[in-house]
């Protein structure tokens, strides 16, 4: 221990003595370690503990997937769930939940809350207990006994002022009276973003539904049963179901997912891994920089190290001494890096809109916790070893006796050291290029997303949602009348140019839309289970004009398309091209649902532009529009085109809707541009982070090449002096230095470009607007890197030509 203390003491002294290089190294490592610590905190939250309960490794989600349509996680039908529950032996508990927005009315101002209908054993399955009261009783999944509700801590605190006597109280939910039986502990909001839970019950009809998939199923593994074993059993059951009911299960595959895999969607995982890779690259570049500095430092200390060897230091002791210095450097970088990471984590967390953050699994657990500190310590020590091992190791190749001789010129850098330093610079350039290209492509993708929705002119559009209670608005005419009155009042408001409604506003709710199968009249049935599907929008006639969705054929919907007239539909161009490529779709008929569905045939009266609903989709999805007067929905979004800032109209809008139904809460009241921003905030984060990482990589790589060229000039001072004495001009010397540096840059870029191309292919497959052959990414950015590298080579070259030949000749 004593000798390690000695090594540390001496190491600190050496670092203090060479302040400038120490500062450069600490700064480079701080950047590398800092971005890694910050990204680890994000990845830890997303990938390791995205759910607010402990035993998540024994809980799995049983989901359907449909690879042919790119659906990797889908809910299941009630009967599927009930059959699984009856047949599976791998689990001791199996439960289910359904998304369920509820309107809280009565005692206080009407408010919409995010609830989940859950099976009574749900909390027990997760291993969580209420803060107050109880959870659900087994019999409360029966219709009639399900008039109970459990509140989240947040809802209890906010709406009921943390009333300690809340248990047993009755509240109005969607027009029904429910008894509050429990309040969950603070921070428990699963499934995200739960504010309340009600019992999940099935009526007789629901218990037979097989092809309507809306249930999410979780199950707790029995002790000693592995995920693989459970998967094998569930696949067997699924195959039996598919054989018995091929229509319902054709193309669907069961997947058993662990909770972290289920809670964090695959795209988030992919981008998290992309960013983890990117920060890893930045750290490698920083390590290469530091290794190059260490090479220079060790070479400058060859005599000292030779003396130490002569004094009895073994090779391992010398390496330990040098590694101690290197690790000390990294630890100093880690301290600064942690401060940077805290700042970055703050920036990441604080810039996420709360209405988006509440949906992201693990978001509220992003922080630099003990694991992040341990991770930082580990990468700091690893970085110290990585950046120090090669210089330390190569030192041991030095000829000690030659170094100690008085006439010896010392340990000039051998060819192996030259080679390794060149390799490090080449690697830095290659990694920096990959990061730059990745960042460039993401920025291009992000810009493409912005451009694609500019057509909506979203800055002057207000969007808000409402959900009509089923009990009160059971009948179609009541709903139609409600919407007609509301739209009329809204359109008459000052500053409002027009008002409309639609089932799904593009990009709202993360771009999620439901899709339904549809059937074209006279068309042979598709292969079993492969019915075409579409987004079904129920809109008001003004919607297309309000949103600048252009008419491409036929007519728009009108107020005269009502209950008394034949049902009609407008289709998107995508539907026309994909399903009517041989002719004119106008006048043709289709219906929502399969051929035997009990829904009316709709006559196609118009074709409109395609609409992009979510940034995830690379292509627009087929869409069929219906008139709200012919199919009035319960849930809808209102859209208003205003004269200026849409938020100035909010209170007037609330009053206008309140005049029609004072108990109806409006929710997600947001300007449309905010809706779009919220929808693409994830990719904006990734693009911004990649850009920052790309720039850091550019700076670090240029520091690396500058360091190596500068050192090389120092080493070749004598040679340069000789060349100049022999008649070499300034240009000759400059060319000599530049040629060497640019050669390394070109080799680095030649290695980096094919790898960047691989990244481009991967990104283009997951992100709208990313093209593999992107001139910005593959021409402009490499040129930028080459230009920066040229400057980094030019500065030492300029220093070389300014040397006095006589001084250079005397240089040893």
């Amino acid at each position, binding site marked *: 221990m*004593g*000798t390690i203390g*000695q090594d540390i003491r*001496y190491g600190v*002294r*050496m670092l203090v*003595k060479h302040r400038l290089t120490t500062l450069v190294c600490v700064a480079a490592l701080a950047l590398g370690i800092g971005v890694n610590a910050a990204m680890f905190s994000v990845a830890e939250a997303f990938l390791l503990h995205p759910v607010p309960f402990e035993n998540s490794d024994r809980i799995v989600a049983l989901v359907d997937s449909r690879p042919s349509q790119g659906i990797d996680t889908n809910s299941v039908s009630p009967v599927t769930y009930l059959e699984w529950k009856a047949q599976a032996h791998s689990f001791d508990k199996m439960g289910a939940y359904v998304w369920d927005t509820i309107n809280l009315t009565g005692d206080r101002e009407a408010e919409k809350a995010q609830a989940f209908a859950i099976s009574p054993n749900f909390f027990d399955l997760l291993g969580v207990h209420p803060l107050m009261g109880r959870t659900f009783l087994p019999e409360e999944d029966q219709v009639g006994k399900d008039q109970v509700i459990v509140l989240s801590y947040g809802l209890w605190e906010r709406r009921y002022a943390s009333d300690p006597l809340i248990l047993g109280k009755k509240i109005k939910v969607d027009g029904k009276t429910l008894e509050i039986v429990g309040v969950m502990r603070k921070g428990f909001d699963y499934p995200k973003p739960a504010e309340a839970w009600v019992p999940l019950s099935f009526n007789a009809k629901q218990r037979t539904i097989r092809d309507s998939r809306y249930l999410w199923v979780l199950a707790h593994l029995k002790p000693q049963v592995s995920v693989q074993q459970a998967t094998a059993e569930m696949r067997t059951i699924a195959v039996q179901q598919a054989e018995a009911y091929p229509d319902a299960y054709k193309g669907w595959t069961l997947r058993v997912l662990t909770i972290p895999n289920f809670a964090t969607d695959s795209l988030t995982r992919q981008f998290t891994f992309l960013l983890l890779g990117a920060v890893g690259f930045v750290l490698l570049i920083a390590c290469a920089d530091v290794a190059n500095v260490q090479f220079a430092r060790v070479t400058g200390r060859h*005599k*000292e190290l*030779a*003396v*130490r*060897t*002569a*004094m*009895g*230091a*073994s*090779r391992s*002791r010398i390496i330990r001494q040098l590694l101690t210095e290197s690790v000390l450097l990294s630890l100093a970088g880690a301290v600064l890096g942690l401060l940077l990471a805290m700042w970055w984590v703050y920036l990441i967390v604080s810039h996420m809109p709360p209405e988006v953050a509440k949906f992201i699994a693990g978001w509220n657990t992003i922080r630099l916790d003990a694991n992040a500190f341990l991770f930082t310590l580990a990468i700091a020590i690893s970085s110290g070893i990585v950046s120090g091992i090669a210089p330390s190791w190569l030192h041991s190749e030095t*000829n*000690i*006796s030659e170094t*100690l*001789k*008085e*006439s010896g010129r010392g340990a000039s850098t051998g060819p192996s050291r030259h080679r390794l330093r060149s390799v490090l610079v080449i690697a830095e350039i290659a990694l920096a290029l990959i990061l730059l290209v990745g960042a460039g492509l993401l920025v291009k993708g992000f810009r493409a997303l912005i451009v694609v929705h500019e057509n909506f002119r979203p800055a002057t559009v207000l969007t808000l949602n409402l959900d009509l209670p089923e009990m009160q608005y059971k009948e179609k005419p009541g709903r139609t009348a409600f919407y007609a009155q509301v739209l009329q009042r809204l359109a008459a408001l000052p500053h409002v140019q027009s008002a409309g409604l639609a089932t799904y506003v593009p990009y709202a709710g993360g771009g999620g839309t439901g899709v339904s199968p549809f059937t074209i009249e006279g068309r042979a049935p598709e292969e079993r289970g492969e019915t075409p599907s579409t987004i079904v929008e129920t809109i008001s006639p003004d919607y297309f004009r309000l949103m600048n969705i252009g008419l491409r054929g036929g007519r728009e919907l009108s107020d005269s398309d009502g209950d008394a007239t034949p049902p009609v539909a407008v289709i998107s161009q995508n539907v026309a091209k994909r399903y009517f490529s041989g002719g004119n779709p106008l006048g043709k008929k289709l219906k929502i649902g399969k051929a035997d569905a009990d829904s009316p045939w709709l006559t196609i009266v118009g074709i409109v532009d395609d609409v992009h609903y979510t940034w995830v989709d690379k292509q627009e999805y087929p869409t069929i529009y219906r008139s709200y007067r012919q199919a009035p929905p319960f849930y809808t979004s209102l859209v208003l085109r205003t004269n200026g800032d849409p938020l100035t109209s909010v209170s007037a809008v609330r009053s206008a809707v309140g005049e029609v139904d004072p108990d109806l809460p409006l929710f997600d009241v947001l300007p449309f541009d905010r809706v779009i921003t919220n929808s693409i905030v994830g990719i904006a984060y990734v693009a911004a982070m990649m850009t920052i990482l790309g720039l850091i990589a550019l700076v670090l790589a240029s520091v690396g090449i500058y360091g190596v060229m500068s050192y090389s000039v120092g080493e070749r001072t004598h040679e340069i002096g000789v060349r100049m004495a022999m008649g070499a001009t300034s240009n000759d010397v400059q060319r000599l230095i530049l040629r060497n540096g640019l050669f390394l840059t070109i080799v680095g870029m030649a290695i980096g470009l094919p790898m960047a191309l691989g990244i481009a292919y991967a990104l283009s497959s997951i992100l709208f607007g990313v093209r593999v052959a992107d001139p910005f990414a593959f021409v402009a950015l490499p040129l930028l890197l080459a230009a920066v590298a040229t400057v980094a080579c030019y500065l030492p070259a300029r220093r070389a030509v300014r040397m006095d030949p006589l001084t250079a000749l005397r240089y040893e």
Partner: protein
Amino acid sequence: MEPLIQLRNMEKVYEAGGSKFYVLRRVSLEIQPGEFVTFMGPSGAGKSTLLSIIGMLDGSWTGEYYFNGEPVHRLNVKKRNELHKANIGFVFQSYHLIDNLTVFENLEIPLSYKNVPHKERVSLVCDILDRFNIVGKKDLFPNQLSGGQQQLVGVARAVIQSPKLILADEPTGNLHSAQGEEIMELFRKLNEAGTSIIQVTHSERNAAYSHRVIQLKDGWVVSETSNAARVG
């Protein structure tokens, strides 16, 4: 008595551009325990190379080398280093003190490489500081000392681990005569106390302190002379 050093047909050769360049040729010699030997010869004769080989800093040679009966030519690097660490101290012309360490720390260095416990290290360093009369310099850095003082520290550093053999390469080459004489007197006393010494020097005056002078030329041992008129 078994010789401290026994070399048989030792050769060292450099290969460059396909041709061989001999630095040492068929060197055979014996040095007894307690002997003070001088290597002399013109530049390029192979003196310093021979010293490095005897000091086990250089392992690329052929022939046989026995140190205190141990066949060095059969030892692996690790064992050779152990042997070197336990028995040999070095003194250099340019002192080769480590610039960033104080006198105390420079003296501590060889002990720490022998894994001597901290308390014992401190005690040994304090002893040697006292013995060499440099207690007052213990916290100074090498650049705060004169050349003579630096070499004094260099000798103290070689002696601190009580080696059987001290190898000195031109130990007074950078010192003026009075300082040089002081260092040579120090060597003489150490030799009288039982430490074997081999020095490389161009100085007849320094050679006069030794029992025997071995002349080298172009890698060959050309003569050996006993020093009847030894100083002291």
